Each structure stands twice: as C-alpha cells, then as structure tokens.
C-alpha cells in the first residue's frame, strides 16, 4: 500500500551551501539522499511531496558542518502482512512465480498456487488449470495476499499466496 507520511531526518550541510539558497540546497540534497531508499520500518520512499518544517541548525564541533532537522512529507510504499494487492508476474518456474508490485518483489511458491493449476514448461513457462481456462505466465496480472515479509537493509521481499477466495489471475475484460 502507498502511504503519505511525514518523516524526519537530520541533514548535514557543508558551509559552502549557506546563503540565500540554503533552503533550496537543503531540499535538493534531501531529495537526492532519501528518494529511492528503503527501510524496514517505513518501506520504500518513492517521492518527496513537500517540506513540513526545517528546524534550527546546529554547528558540529570542529567541522563547520551544520545539522538541520528536516520534517518532510513523502509517498512511501510499504507492504504489510495480510494485505491484498495486485501485481504483475515477472518470472515463472517450477518452484512458483515472482511478481512485482511497484518496487517490491513478491514470491508465490507452488504450494500456495491452487492445486488444480499445473506447471507447464516451455518457452513461456506457465501455470494452467486442467481445462486451460486460467493461465498464469509472465506479464499476467494477479491479485495476491501477502503472508510474510523479509526486510533487508535496502530491500523488502515478500511471500504471497493466491490460494484463497477472490485471489488469482485478474479477469481481463478483453478476454472474459
């Protein structure tokens, strides 16, 4: 799920950036430092949308650098256990398939794919029901439920399932 959230960060600024453009320099540095990063607590910071408040700067002993506490609003993407979302399938193999929801990768193991779907190898590996009516392959859109998350320093990785009511390939109005 995407959230609009207020975060805080202490920014260190070199004295050469002081002057009239101090605020702009600070904001530009913040965007460069923060956008695209990922933390386990808040997820992926997708984009900064506004600056809430810049606190009083504090000169650091000995260096001349100044630390400013900056409060900013941003759009973050944070997956939660139990959340249901839509994703695009990126890779299919006999262990299961990988799907992507924005910056997050989700793995769905073949144990969590409905039992009536069988793996078919070939140029376009896929999972298909015995009557061939439902097919999961690369670029399919699926609705899945996240059942576990693992957090790395720079990445969040999720395990999902499509073995539940109202989960699985999304009905494409063009083919239905």
């Amino acid at each position, binding site marked *: 799920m995407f*959230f609009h*959230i207020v975060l805080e960060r202490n920014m260190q600024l070199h004295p050469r950036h002081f002057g009239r453009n101090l605020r702009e320099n600070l904001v530009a540095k913040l965007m460069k430092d923060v*956008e695209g990063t990922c933390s386990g607590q808040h997820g992926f910071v*997708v984009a900064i949308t506004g600056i809430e408040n810049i606190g009083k700067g504090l000169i650091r002993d000995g260096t001349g650098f100044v630390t400013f506490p900056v409060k900013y609003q941003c759009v973050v993407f944070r997956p939660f256990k139990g959340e249901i979302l*839509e994703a695009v399938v990126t890779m299919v193999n006999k262990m299961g398939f990988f799907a992507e929801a924005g910056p997050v990768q989700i793995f769905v193991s073949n144990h969590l794919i409905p039992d009536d779907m069988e793996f078919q190898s070939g140029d376009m590996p896929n999972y298909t029901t015995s009557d061939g009516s439902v097919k999961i392959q690369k670029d399919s*859109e699926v609705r899945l439920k996240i059942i576990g998350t693992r957090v790395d320093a720079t990445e969040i990785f999720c395990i999902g399932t499509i073995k539940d009511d109202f989960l699985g390939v999304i009905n494409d109005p063009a083919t239905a």
Partner: protein
Amino acid sequence: MLRADEEDASELKIGDDFLKAKCLMNSEVAILLEHRCDQMKHMSGDSTTQLPQVLEKSLQYVKRFSRFTNQGSVKQVREVLSRYQLAEFELAVIGNLCPENVEEAKSVVPSLKTKGRGHDDEAIERLLNDLLMIKKFE
C-alpha cells in the same frame, strides 16, 4: 515499532506510524507521481532524463492498476468512501480493488466483518454501488 510477526493488515495492525498516516489509492499516487516526474524533467530541462528506479517502477505500477484515471472521479471516490466510517487502510484497499460484490469486499477487507462496526451487508452493498456509479460516469 511493530515486530514483523505482530503486524497483520487484515486486522488493521499496521503500526502507529502508518495508522496515523494517510493511505493513498493507486489512482491518487499516479496523479502525485506524474506531477513529480514532470517537475523533475522540467528541472533538468530534458524530457528524456532517467527517473530513479523506485519512482519509475512505482509509476508504471500505479498507472497499470489505477481504477480511476480522471482527477475529479478520484476525488469523488475518496469523498464517497469516507462517508462509510472506514479506516484509511480499508478505504484505500476498496478503492484499489473495487470489489464487485459483498462477499468479495468482505474477503479482501476482512476487518469489515470482524469489528462489528455496523458494516452490515446492506451498507457494503450501497458502498459498492456508489463506487460503480462513479466508475460508470467517469
């Protein structure tokens, strides 16, 4: 902060930070990010600038999965849904997935039925109808 094994979105356990934060529907994120991308391209004065990967991926994702594309209807969806005493998180999930019937709605947002907050089937039905109307007249 919530430990990973304690969080469960189906019971709305998503930690204080996120309960207080505003949840965004994919359609809203699409509007925000497109604006941000334009801004970035404008700043660099070059329309072919490479966007940061996380931004690029998110933008592609929300464009693909936006149920509502015009700004007016996105606003309307939020307005209509906020009349039903939903938590922010529930509102966004319903807005993202647009369930077609009551059973589906209760399945994708289990917290609708567990809390006994007066979300009977009729109320959910009305909510889904309202949503359908907006979609129809978009």
